[in-house]
């Protein structure tokens, strides 16, 4: 048994790994021949050796990770946040303008909201198909992902990507590869919120 979390040098490590490998093979061989309860006992022993094999490499991994992490280029957080705010805000502003135009032209408030959403989804889909939305997303990040246009982008980009595998197994099967989790968990959360609202009200 070796001490845990000790960074071994290469020779020591190779020695220990070879030793463990020898044991592992032997125990596996016994396990293969054993029956019933005895087999379980050997399986337990084998798994313990496997855990040791993993444990022995761990300090080396941690050591390397700490070297590597220092060189990782930082995310441009401030720039990203500002761009997300500007682009996200602009999309919402466009939405508001469209909404106002709809209400001015005589639509009811609810109908205008639905029509605005549909129109924004259409715009998101159009600019995805024209190949501009991914360029926008590169700069804007969450600013163009979070609004409803981003939802359109996630579906249309999947549709475009998998169109070549046919309409059934391509588009049909893969349409929601990106948006799927949003739909699943969005729906689930809406139910939960609804329940809370029902009882708390």
């Amino acid at each position, binding site marked *: 048994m070796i001490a845990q979390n000790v960074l071994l040098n290469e020779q020591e490590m190779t020695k220990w790994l070879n030793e463990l490998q020898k044991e592992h093979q032997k125990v596996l061989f016994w396990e293969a021949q054993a029956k019933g309860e005895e087999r379980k006992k050997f399986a337990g022993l084998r798994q313990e050796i496997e855990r040791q094999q993993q444990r022995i490499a*761990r300090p080396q991994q941690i050591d390397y*990770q700490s070297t*590597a992490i220092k060189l*990782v*280029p930082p995310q441009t957080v401030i720039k990203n946040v500002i761009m997300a705010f500007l682009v996200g805000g602009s999309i919402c502003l466009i939405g508001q303008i469209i909404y106002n135009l709809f209400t001015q032209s005589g639509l009811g408030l609810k109908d205008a909201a639905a029509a605005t959403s549909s129109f924004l989804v259409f715009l998101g889909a159009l600019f995805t198909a024209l190949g501009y939305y*991914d360029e926008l997303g590169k700069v804007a990040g969450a600013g163009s992902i979070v609004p409803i246009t981003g939802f359109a*982008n996630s579906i*249309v980009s999947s549709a475009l990507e*998998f169109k070549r595998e046919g309409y059934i197994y391509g588009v049909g099967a893969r349409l929601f590869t*990106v948006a799927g989790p949003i739909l699943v968990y969005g729906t689930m959360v809406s139910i939960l919120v609804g329940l809370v609202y029902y009882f708390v009200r």
Partner: protein
Amino acid sequence: MAQNKIGKQTLHFPSTPIITSWASVVGPMEGKGPLGEKYDLVLTDTLAGEKTWEKAEQKMMQFSIELALEKRNLLPKDLDFYLAGDLLNQITCANFTARFLNTPFLGLYGACSTFAEGLCMAGVLLEGGVAEKVGVSASSHHDTAEKQFRTPTELGDQRPMTAQWTVTGSASIIIEKTGTGIILTHATIGKIIDLGNSNAQDLGSAMAPAAFDTLKTHFEDLGRNENDYDLIVTGDLGLLGHGILKELLKEKGISPDRFNDCGIMVYSPEQDTHCGGSGCGCSGVVLTAHLIERLLSGYYHRILFIGTGALLSPLTSLQGETIPCIAHAVVLESRGE
């Protein structure tokens, strides 16, 4: 000890197989890169007139081997073996290109180290006396790789700063027993190294230790050091992986001055790929378009080419597995016949 094996992992090719012909085909973005003038063929768009990206990639690989054959006045039937690989599931580009060539074929998968792996294996076939002419190809395509490994290409997501851009490109070489060109003297076959990285958007950090391990073993096996090479070039560690490799080298007291990386050379910083290029095509096209030419002109005399590969799949990433990585090294020298 096996006759032509030196030390733990290094192969010696005393008969010096010769790279007699080579060709590279790339996509438009690579054509705009710093090596743009040097590629044999730059496609005008990423579909290359085909209906799908997968077909386009296959065509690229086919074009590159055809161009390499044509430069040498050969036909596919003159090849004893064809070795090829790419990044797609079941290495379809390689299989479909081999279907076209109709020559004995072995498919390779070493992720982005495939081209170096092909060079090693071609050397073994020639040294073993079972072949006189061997063709080697490797390809990658940005859009097919994104589709398989990441997200739809038109999705407006932000790539992290550690991400690399898969090169759209294919490279092929012809290695022969006799002829003029660049010679292959040694190869070091790498071991799988996994230091616990699991971020599929940061393959440079994952692969750097593999490159370092192969390099260290190569030096030990041959009793050489960094000064024995005019250039030591890694496949696609990118800016981050290259930086980490330099740190690891410094710790061991190896000067990193003569090191470079194909992933850094293939794009210019203005192309905004974050950490540089990656993919089977990356090291392949830089070697065939740029480095071999420099060997030929005498600018370099001996280089060490280390192909690096991250052997993950989208499935293993999702299941939280760490990334096993590999690196194969090949020694190329300019002293021909």
